[in-house]
């Protein structure tokens, strides 16, 4: 049996918590701090998984189901996402629509879990989450359709595997626009600066973090791990589109892993050099991402 398709899934399971660590290290480097250890997310997960739980009396089973549904959905998403040129466990035409649907399911349950607490802070976070994601979704799909048209393929694995240096030489602008659009999508979907601030403790400025305000113990561990996986998957998508295939499977995997940490570096750099945008400005950025992707599509029409 061919082991190659299992590699992206297993690597995502094992290595995804490294990605937030690498972003934090980059930020620490910029700020001249020592910063938390690279493995901090693993420590957090380990600590949380050993704890008990505290629940609000207002909550119901919906609150408890949220993190589990979210993690299960993103785990299936991990089976759909290739790593660089290494094909995914499941690959079929239009698989990224299922990917988007699964992440939508994850969001749906996180949002209703937040609303279940009856807290206005979490309600506010939930409201902003659905607000931004509704604007991000078109950008993501249009960008992927553009890549599909450019490569003439229909599934994520084929798209990522098919992008060659020839594409970059001949259609550089198209791919560059797509990459910028997808980077904005990555930042917005994973609650990074300039859309959301993962560090702030002022609940009023947060989106993703505030929705998890009442979760603790294993539930919070599921949320943290799910978020790390989601970041990993979006980074893998970006890397897959940027990296041309070399032909050697193992070399491809190594290159892709390197690429993942370059994404971490880029995100960390963005977080270090700019501030969070005002909430009213964010939609312009997100709609802008969609416009970039649509422009790329028009350029890709021959």
């Amino acid at each position: 049996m061919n082991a190659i398709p299992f590699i992206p899934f297993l690597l995502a399971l094992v290595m995804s918590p490294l990605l937030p660590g690498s972003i934090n290290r980059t930020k620490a480097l910029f700020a001249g701090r020592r910063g938390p250890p690279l493995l901090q997310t693993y420590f957090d997960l380990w600590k949380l998984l050993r704890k008990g739980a505290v629940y609000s009396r207002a909550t119901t089973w919906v609150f408890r189901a949220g993190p589990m549904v979210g993690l299960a959905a993103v785990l299936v998403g991990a089976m759909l996402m290739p790593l660089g040129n290494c094909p995914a466990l499941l690959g079929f035409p239009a698989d990224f629509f299922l990917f988007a649907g699964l992440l939508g399911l994850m969001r749906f349950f996180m949002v209703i879990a937040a609303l279940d607490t009856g807290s206005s802070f979490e309600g506010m976070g939930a409201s902003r989450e659905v607000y931004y994601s509704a604007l991000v979704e078109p950008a993501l799909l249009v960008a992927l359709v553009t890549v599909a048209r450019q490569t003439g393929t229909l599934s994520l694995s084929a798209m990522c595997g098919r992008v060659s240096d020839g594409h970059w030489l001949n259609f550089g602008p198209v791919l560059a626009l797509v990459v910028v659009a997808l980077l904005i999508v990555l930042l917005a979907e994973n609650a990074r600066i300039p859309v959301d601030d993962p560090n702030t403790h002022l609940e009023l400025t947060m989106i993703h973090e505030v929705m998890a305000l009442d979760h603790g113990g294993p539930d919070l561990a599921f949320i943290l791990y799910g978020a790390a996986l989601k970041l990993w998957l979006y980074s893998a998508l970006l890397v897959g589109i940027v990296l041309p295939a070399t032909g050697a499977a193992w070399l491809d995997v190594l290159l892709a892993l390197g690429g993942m940490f370059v994404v971490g570096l880029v995100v960390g750099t963005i977080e270090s050099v700019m501030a969070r945008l005002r909430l009213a400005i964010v939609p312009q950025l997100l709609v802008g991402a969609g416009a970039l992707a649509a422009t790329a599509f028009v350029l890709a029409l021959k």
Partner: protein
Amino acid sequence: MTWLLFALAALLAGALTVLFPAWILRRPGRARWPQRAGAPVAARSGHRALPDSLPAIQSDCEISKAEPSGRYVSWLGAGSVVIAAVLGCVPAVRAVLGGPVESLRLPWPVPFGEFSIAMDPLTAWFLLPTLLLSALSAIYGAGYLRAWQGRRPLGPVWLFYCLLVLGMSLVLLARNAVLFLFAWELMAVASFFLVTFDHEDEAAREAGWIYFVATHLGTAFLLVFFLLLARETGSMDFGVWAEKGVAAHGLAGILFLLAIIGFGTKAGFMPFHVWLPEAHPAAPSHVSALMSGVMIKTGIYGLVRAFTFLGTPPLWWGWLLIGMGLTSGVLGVLSALAQHDLKRLLAYHSVENIGIIALGLGVGLLGLSTGSTTLTVLGFGGGLLHVANHALFKGLLFLGAGAVLQTTGTHEIDHLGGLLKRMPWTAVTFLVGAVAISGLPPLNGFVSEFLIFMGAFQGGVLLNAAIAVPLLALIAGLALIGGLAAACFTKAFGVVFLGELRSRHVFGAREAGWAMRLPMLLLAAACALIGLLAPLVVGNLLPVLENVTGLPHEVVRESLAASTASLPWVVLGSIVFLLLLLTLVLLRRGLLAGRPVVETVTWRCGYARPSARMQYTASSFAQPLVDLFRPLLRTRKSVQKPDGCFPRAGALKTATPDISREELYRPGFQYIAAWLSRLRWLQHGNVQLYVLYIAVTLMVLLAWKFR
């Protein structure tokens, strides 16, 4: 056919019998309106006496004594609909599975008319959800209307319910234009009386009139459509129309536009949807479910049937339909987002879903005109599957909204909250419907949207720019609609069912009875089943697609098999998801076993005196999106800010009236009314003169005939 005739007869019998027991049992000198006894109770219990809302508790004990006939009538009516549905399903299932087309012709002494009905796969595909939802809504209605026993005579409700089901079935079965229009009118009139069921409420009466006017304007376009077709082919028979077709391109285009307006009014395409957000909330909830779930689909059926008469479509038909679909989809979901009335919100979602169906049909038409069978099969397949799916989840959601309305007495979302604790079954089924309508895996809404998306995606990737660009717009629009629908249903479910009990409306809430719960559970199960058995269900679309596209069997079969090869993978993904979820549930249970699990208050950042009124409301939840799309929605706000050193009261009121009603129809109708007021001198209330008008008109017509 015998089964079918028995089914139709059962409906007629039901319609008649519900009238007579009501009459017979009401005769013996009882008070005709026993609600006078019940009314003070409603007032005392402090409910804002919304007429559709008298809590079940008091009406049960007070009124069932007063009028025993109510319950018999309900079970008679519901029973006959259920029997008819079971009988009718037999031939419908046979036809969907690809059996021979059964037909029946009886003479009918109406000029140009013939009682000609047939059950082909297309009819059966629409008839199955119609019968299923009719039966389930009827069972639900028998429970739901108990709150009205004695306050209204229930006989007429069930009469019109049976007639509505009969009308819908006949519309789908008719193969003669006169019979079709007769059934179309029967359906419209029956549903008008159901919408105005609560005729003491002025809003319901107005909703009824808007519906009546809108549906007849639509029918006027249909009349022209049928007459033009009849003149072209010299027959009123659908079979002849499908065979001969329309040769002239110009005429076909005009017919297409007439069909879009005529059938689109019933289906609820933006901007012909104005009656929908008025009529659906006004009707009793089980009727709303039926109207929103299946009655508006007769418009889609008519449109698809019309495609089979009009020959090969030019490209602009597909573009137009995609444009209409995008308008309806995006504006429908945005308008829904701005509503804080649960049933109005659901009604706007019907506009959105009709938009999604139109997108599918548009892709199918593009496929037909470019000769791409993949596009044809995926577009029509997705659109038609969405017809069935929407019937299931929208029916489910309206029934859930009805259960909430009945026990709390309000459809104002911002007054509700925390109902999951009181009505766990209703909440779970409503959640299933909410996930399904948001187009999320693993439920049925995702499957149909996946097919439509797949069609657009393949066209966008493989075809030339003239097709690819509209299809890209479709993909972006579908993604936006999906995101906004998720926003809207997290709002609806979250604010109504989650959090703390918000106001006095919900304190006394309790779970709906079994007659109401069972249909909701069955519909939820159907949503899940279609999601998990997607390849099987889509495989059964084969005869329907042949019927619609007119392509040869082999071509459709191969194309359907090739283009839906992804579906088993999608289902595999869904099953893996469910298994993983189960694993995580067990894992979490294992982890928490033996550890401290504490219950406390929600963390409010240090604030120690939380109150249920501090929860996020539906209006605040939707505010960012509503503000972003302000130019399209024109929400009216009136704010009373708390001011002074010791602020006491503050208030915020928002209302989002329908934009096409405000900006298009109101000015238009006012202009027409002003213009026509010049003819007011003709109206003076003198009946003799009116008779004279009629006589003169007849004579003029006679003279014109023999000129």
